[in-house]
């Protein structure tokens, strides 16, 4: 029995003829805070979609909690926060409370009413992201950063063990990005939730993450943040440009 919550073994994916991911091997240990970095079009979102079962790999194997993804059923263990911009209709007439409650749809099972049965879980999740004063507001009336906090609450309300985030700070104003990542760190450290984060904000997160994966159609580096320090002098930095530089620079703050 492995203690890896997510494992990718020789995973390949292509859209029509374009090969996007080649022989990806990745193992995420329980409790990790993994940052996935890489240039645009490097297959970061595709990799997340493979892990979430939104796409099916074309070769190789994806395992979740030690089980092949085709046999995996406990989806409530995995929370997902997508890039806000393309995932939701801001005019949708739903309150923060209703949106967070919808994160329990699968956990509650068919034919059950979540909003009363899981009231305390919903309130807890809204509180965990500091949105308790807004729970009765329509989601469209909130700022981008507030909306993204609501989506985190929706993802954690089912008490997942893993939280997967795809560039969650796109559309969040700069001054709120730091608070946002502080909140993620709390989820990781205090609640022990394993985090997988696709991001460009490597400067902001570098002192919070425990593992790094550099993706550019192939996985060029994957390991603990300390290991990453060791290989920094190799020519990877030239390959990735500023991503690597930023992480390197911020290592002076110390990595846990």
């Amino acid at each position, binding site marked *: 029995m492995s203690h890896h919550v997510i494992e990718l073994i020789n995973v390949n994916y292509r859209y029509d003829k374009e090969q996007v991911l080649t022989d990806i091997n990745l193992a995420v240990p329980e409790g990790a805070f993994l940052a996935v970095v890489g240039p645009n079009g490097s297959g970061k979102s595709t990799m997340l979609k493979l892990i*979430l*079962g*939104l796409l099916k790999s074309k070769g190789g194997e994806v395992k979740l909690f030690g089980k092949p993804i085709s046999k995996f*059923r406990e*989806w*409530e263990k*995995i929370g*997902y926060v*997508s890039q806000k911009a393309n*995932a*939701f*209709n801001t*005019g*949708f*007439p*739903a*309150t923060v*409370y*209703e*949106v967070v*409650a*919808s*994160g*329990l*749809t*699968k956990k*509650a099972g*068919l*034919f059950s*009413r*979540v909003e009363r049965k899981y009231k305390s879980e919903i309130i807890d999740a809204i509180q965990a992201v500091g949105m308790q004063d807004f729970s*009765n*507001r*329509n989601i469209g009336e909130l700022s981008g950063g507030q909306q993204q906090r609501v989506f985190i609450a*929706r993802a954690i309300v*089912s008490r997942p063990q893993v939280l997967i985030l795809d560039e969650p700070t796109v559309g969040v104003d700069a001054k709120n990005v730091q608070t946002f990542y502080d909140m993620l760190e709390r989820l990781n450290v205090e609640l022990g939730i394993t985090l997988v984060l696709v991001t460009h904000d490597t400067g902001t997160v570098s002192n919070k993450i425990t593992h790094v994966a550099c993706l550019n159609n192939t996985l060029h580096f994957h390991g603990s943040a300390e290991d990453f320090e060791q290989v920094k002098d190799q020519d990877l930095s030239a390959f990735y440009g500023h991503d690597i530089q930023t992480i390197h620079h911020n290592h002076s703050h110390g990595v846990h």
Partner: protein
Amino acid sequence: MLEAIITYEFLQNAFAAGILIGLIAPLLGAFIVVRRLSLIADALSHVTLSGIAASLFLSKTFVMFNGLNPLWLGMGFSVAGSLLIERLRAVYKHYQELAIPILLSGGIGVGVIFISLADGFNTDLFSYLFGSVSAVGRSDLYLITGIAVIVLLIVFLLYKELFLLSFDEEFGKASGLSTKALHLIFMVMTALVIAASMRIVGILLVSSLMTLPVAAAMRLAKGFKQTIGLSVLFGEIAVIVGLISAFYLDLAPGGTIVVSSIIILLAAIGYRNWFAVKKS
């Protein structure tokens, strides 16, 4: 009015059917509007027309189809149309809205052929196009009641799944929801509600009862449940006011119901704007 309802069976039928439709059309409409599928409802109603026209033609031409309730064939066409839309949307992945004009014109086209074959318009067809106070029979009412029960049951039991499908389909998929099956159930329900509604509001105006009350409710409501509640309230008011005025003024109820809905919509927009000005 009450006396008239007690006296005439046709009025009882019309009002009972109207109240059921005033409930289920805006209920489903709330999901249709937020999923941006309003025009699909319109396309499906036109496909229903071809089913009705086919049925009228068949019962006129062949003795064996005599007495066949056109609602059945209309319902069949509508459900088939909803499945066809899904096929077309899959074929034209990047131009999904193309499915709408294809079915809309196809529905009218086939309908017109059957109408010509059956030697043109008659009062029966007119009542299907624009609704009727007097034409709702007992068998219509039974069918409409059946559809209403099915739709209410499904929406009640699958509410949270339908909400998630409407709000964020990708998140639904990622949390293990079978969105494809759910969407199919949803489309078939839409087709059924359209078939049920046309006896009262008419084929050409069916989609109005699914969209106008929801448009008004969205101006005022907090949250999705409240949006549904207000939509149903506005839908019922529009249907009842529409039917009463249609009866007394001898008008087609499709017209009076739509005009009532539009008055409610304008009032909702006006109220919201006035309220917003006062607040600032």
